[in-house]
């Protein structure tokens, strides 16, 4: 492997990790409700922005992070209330529109209070690059990849072994039966929103030192992550991670070997092609049509 390739690889993994975290959020909410939260990307923005603003006010990293996650959680729980209400009273279409509108409101509030300027969060452990296989990597990149892996392990453990996690899986597979068995389906949706928000916020915070943060940083991340979730097969956690990484790598390799100008088109091209051959995503199952 030559140094350039390793450089592209790490660039792709860093971006991919962020998409994967947000894609997981999409997938959790989808599994719990059958609907998509199109404002998922805003959790990335909220996490990063709140941390940056608090740190500029002199608060150290860890408390700032905790506060940022708390803020994102609070917003997500508010959204969850509106989400459930819309889903029950209206339908999937209205949910899409509602969440798009909610995202605008969140962006709007941040815009009004914190302005449009770019903010930065200092790197967790300095800016001196490390040399790996001839490529130069920022230590923050390792933080991003490391934290993503840890989060994935925790999630994996939670869904497989913990009681709450199993209830979650059961409820998403068959809500009615789960309800009969005494699982609180509403609680499951709340849990999904909380997890999704925390994932996005953490994603936003750890990547902020690399990517900076501003009031509409979440839009593009959200769009690409929803594509990642669909590419992976909506509803599959592994698929969401895979989709996120594929998009990240696809973008960096395209920029590296083909054309940097068309890099942004990669996820959209990927999903278009995928829809033609495998409409249910890589790891998704075809729904059985019943009349």
């Amino acid at each position, binding site marked *: 492997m030559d140094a350039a390739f390793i450089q592209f690889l790490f660039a792709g993994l860093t971006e991919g990790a962020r998409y994967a975290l947000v894609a997981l959020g999409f997938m959790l909410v989808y599994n719990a409700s059958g609907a998509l939260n199109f404002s998922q990307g805003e959790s990335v923005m909220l996490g990063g922005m709140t941390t940056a603003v608090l740190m500029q006010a002199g608060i150290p990293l860890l408390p700032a992070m905790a506060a940022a996650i708390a803020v994102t959680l609070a917003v997500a729980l508010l959204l969850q209330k509106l989400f459930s209400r*819309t889903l029950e*009273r209206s339908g999937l279409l209205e949910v899409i529109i509602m969440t798009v509108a909610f995202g605008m409101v969140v962006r*709007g509030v941040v815009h009004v209070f914190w*302005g449009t300027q770019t903010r930065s969060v200092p790197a967790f452990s300095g800016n001196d690059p490390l040399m790996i296989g001839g490529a130069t990597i920022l230590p923050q990149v390792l933080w991003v990849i490391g934290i993503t892996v840890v989060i994935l392990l925790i999630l994996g453990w939670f869904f497989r072994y913990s009681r709450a996690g199993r209830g979650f899986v059961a409820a998403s597979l068959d809500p009615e039966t789960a309800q009969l068995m005494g699982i609180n389906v509403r609680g499951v949706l709340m849990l999904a929103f909380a997890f999704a928000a925390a994932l996005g916020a953490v994603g936003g915070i750890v990547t902020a030192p690399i990517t900076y943060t501003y009031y509409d940083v979440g839009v593009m991340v959200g769009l690409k992550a929803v594509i990642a979730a669909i590419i992976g097969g909506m509803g599959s956690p592994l698929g969401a991670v895979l989709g996120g990484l594929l998009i990240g790598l696809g973008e960096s390799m395209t920029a590296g070997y083909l054309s940097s100008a068309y890099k942004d088109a990669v996820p959209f*091209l990927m999903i*278009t092609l995928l*829809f033609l051959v495998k409409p249910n995503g890589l790891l998704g199952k075809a729904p059985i049509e019943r009349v």
Partner: protein
Amino acid sequence: MMNELLIKPSGVAAAPIKSVIGQRVFARYSLLFVLVLALALVPILISNSFYIAVANLVMINAVVAISMTLLLGTTGQLSLGHAGFFAFGAYVSAYLGGPQGLPTLLALALAVLGTAVLGWCVARLFLRLSGYYLAVATLGIGMMLSIVLRNEQHLTGGPDGMSVVPFGVLGFSLQGEMVWYFVLLFVLVFATVGSYNLLRSPAGRALRTLHDAEIAATSVGVDVRGYKVRVFVLSTALTGLMGALYAHYAGFITPASASFTHSVQFVMMAVIGGIGSVAGAVLGAVIVTLLPNLLAGAAEYEVLVVGLILLSTVLLLPRGMVPTLTAWYRGRKGRKAS
């Protein structure tokens, strides 16, 4: 045959039914006629051509919103990429009428045709996808179009955009807000009457059934997929037409016209006024177009205000403004009558 066999034809009942329909149609058209007349007088009464310019923008957006309503309000297909089709129409007409030197009328026609063909391809490929998948597929198409527009500088002028030649018909060039006002008013009236007709025609009934009773539609012989494709093509072609008209009217277009935000704005227009209601689409276009102008002095509040309006519409008036108001009005009238 069945008529006579199954039950005795009630000639007495049939006649009044017909005349009731006739009256209602007349009442509707006369209202429309008065409205159009009033709108036609507007530019004569208002001399400030900035207001006319805003009205022109409203009308362009209103027709796109109607095209969105035809899609969203009938079959329930959500397109998050309509700005892409708008920009496609705009750029094709601008390119063919400008650098290629075609007569603008021909350029416009080709732009509409081109958008229709593009819409047809998208529809054929993705309409079997429903719900989110269609929304995401159209989103992807729109995004790719906007990236291409930004990067193919030799064709599109790149991110700076390109200037567009004025629209000329028979050696007469359409310039000035006033002229465009009447052109756009004509297009808007045509689109409104046409979609209003369509929605209550047999084809419209079939289309509206696809929203939540596809299987019932199939069972009475509706070619579900065929109708979905046709209405998608109709909607994209109309959007492409408005894009092309906008390009010639504004004299300048940029890739921002294909952006995701712009697509969301089109959806908002169709939703705020009332999904499926033509009048609602027009009202939605009025609100969404006027807001930024009202907030021009406080642009930082714009995203927030627009978001709040959309959010509260979905939450508080789930059927949108016009249908909710009509229902309320009817209810009141009903109560009064009883």
